[in-house]
């Protein structure tokens, strides 16, 4: 299953923020939308970084006031990105191995959406449920 299947039924409003915004603004957005990461874009709407809860926590323990820092100073710049053709199993494996939980899906420089580990779990669960249901039907059919 491709990640495009996950994006097809996901809310389309991607929550983004600029590098020049403050962490205070970022926290407000994370809370408002109940999400764990923000895609950071420049004025041309291109992906320039990702700001996750973990990025904020890691920095918060070593500065006096994280609220007044710029997003650009705290975000992860080398973002691991996905493409619509990426497969669920591979994405799940990479997220686990490389310990990140949000994967922006891009087409060129344009961000199409973001796939979270929660989305991946749900898709895997539904895929397994579906397979089990199909196999159970066939097994029961064998019994006449």
């Amino acid at each position, binding site marked *: 299953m491709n990640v495009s299947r996950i994006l*097809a*039924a996901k809310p389309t409003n991607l929550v983004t923020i600029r590098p020049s915004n403050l962490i205070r603004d970022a926290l407000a957005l994370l809370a408002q939308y109940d999400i764990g990461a923000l895609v950071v874009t420049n004025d041309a709407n291109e992906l320039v970084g990702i700001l996750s809860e973990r990025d904020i926590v890691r920095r918060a323990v070593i500065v006096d006031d994280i609220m007044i820092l710029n997003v650009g100073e705290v975000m992860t710049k080398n973002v691991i990105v*996905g493409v619509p053709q990426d497969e669920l199993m*591979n994405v799940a494996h*990479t997220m686990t191995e490389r310990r990140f939980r949000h994967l922006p899906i891009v087409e060129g420089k344009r961000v199409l959406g973001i796939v979270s580990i929660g989305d991946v779990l749900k898709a895997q669960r539904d895929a397994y*449920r579906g397979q089990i249901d*199909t196999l159970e039907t066939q097994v029961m059919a*064998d019994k006449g």
Partner: protein
Amino acid sequence: MSKIGTKENPLRVAIIGAGPTGFYTAEHLFKRKDLAVEIDMYDSLPTPFGLVRAGVAPDHQKIKSVTKLYTRIAQKPGYRFFGNVKFGKDITLENLQDHYHQIVFCTGAQTDNYLNIPGADLEGHHPATEFVAWYNGHPDFRDRQFDLSQEKVAVIGVGNVAIDVARILSLSHEELAKTDIADYALEALSNSGVKEVHIIGRRGPVQAKFTTPEVKEIGELEEADVFTLPEEMELDELSQKELESTADRGTARKVELLKSYAENKPTGKPKQLTLRFLVSPVEMYGDDQGRITGMKLVKNELYATDAGTLRPAATDQFEDLEVGLVFRSIGYRGVPLPGIPFNQSWGVIYNEEGRIIDPETNKPVVGEYTAGWIKRGPSGVIGTNKPDALETVEKMMEDLKAGNYLHPSQPDAADALKMVEERQPDYFSFEDWEKLDEIEVARGEEENRPRVKFTTVKEMMEAVGKQAAEPVV
């Protein structure tokens, strides 16, 4: 006036599409405790069950047994089937809004992905989806023509549909005659000149999407020897790693089987089925009459994306493959419905977890929902649609509780029936389908087959005693 969803005021739902997803949606609705619901299920065909009838291979009867579940759902009080009623032609969105509180579109994926290479328009290149619909007796495809006199055939794609097509082309007359394949297809295939079938996959055996039982099956055909190429069975480093880390036991078994086919020797069977990997068609060749004579294939190498998926990249090595008939099997694709916001790039209805969304405002359209392949895209097995339908039904129930549903001017079930009778007097009820089913199975018993299908709407109407109101194909 009491709440909607109670016995006095049942929730009235229209489901457009009577395939697996339509039935799973109905099942989830009927299962809700404390919900009184009436469901009208519409389908453009007189017969229900969607791809279970028209897509599942004729020699895979066990998979079709899921229709027993759908039949049980159809027999619940509060369920009605309106077959031979096409949304957008016989009934409109406005008609549905007049009669129902909620509408769910489960229309699946009616077309296929195009292959954009030079020569793709040559005669003899067909979508596998049409061939499958043809041999399964789908009334809209029974008149398609395929030149089965050709000796060499290619099937582009390595999913279950591709392997189904390759297998059906390789079955003996005896093997086919035991199935519910359409009569005309049985005859055409039994007289076919096909000798070589080539399945073409752009990635390697570890990535191929067809499943293990299907791979095992093609190794056990009466009239066809199956082969893979030893050099294509040697796994590259990335595939080896993928096999060891992410793949499951089923994939490991599949790769073992495919590797074993590289050691097969011809045993004198009349047909040869060869599975090719790491090659992509880049051009189709034709003769003066515009008929396909072959394909140019480029050899691929695999690379890993950032997120870890192995993708094909073309090398500078090519080969020519002589073929006279080509089926592309590179995915189904959804078709837009009139008046329903459609996401052209994904080929699905704009939606969020099953609620149809207006892309201009990003807000849900009241009373409109979607489930299945037209919601998420065409992938997965039949059962995959069950949790998908559940997600949509949960959103429907949230909206019902919050008072966000349509306010039909004529919510009575009898009025909806009148509407259908006026707009499509030749509609088929579930009882009509059961009559057809009985006749098909009886006809099959005479010939030792599971059923002998009706393949035109006209025959179906005659069989259940309907007189056509207007000329019918």
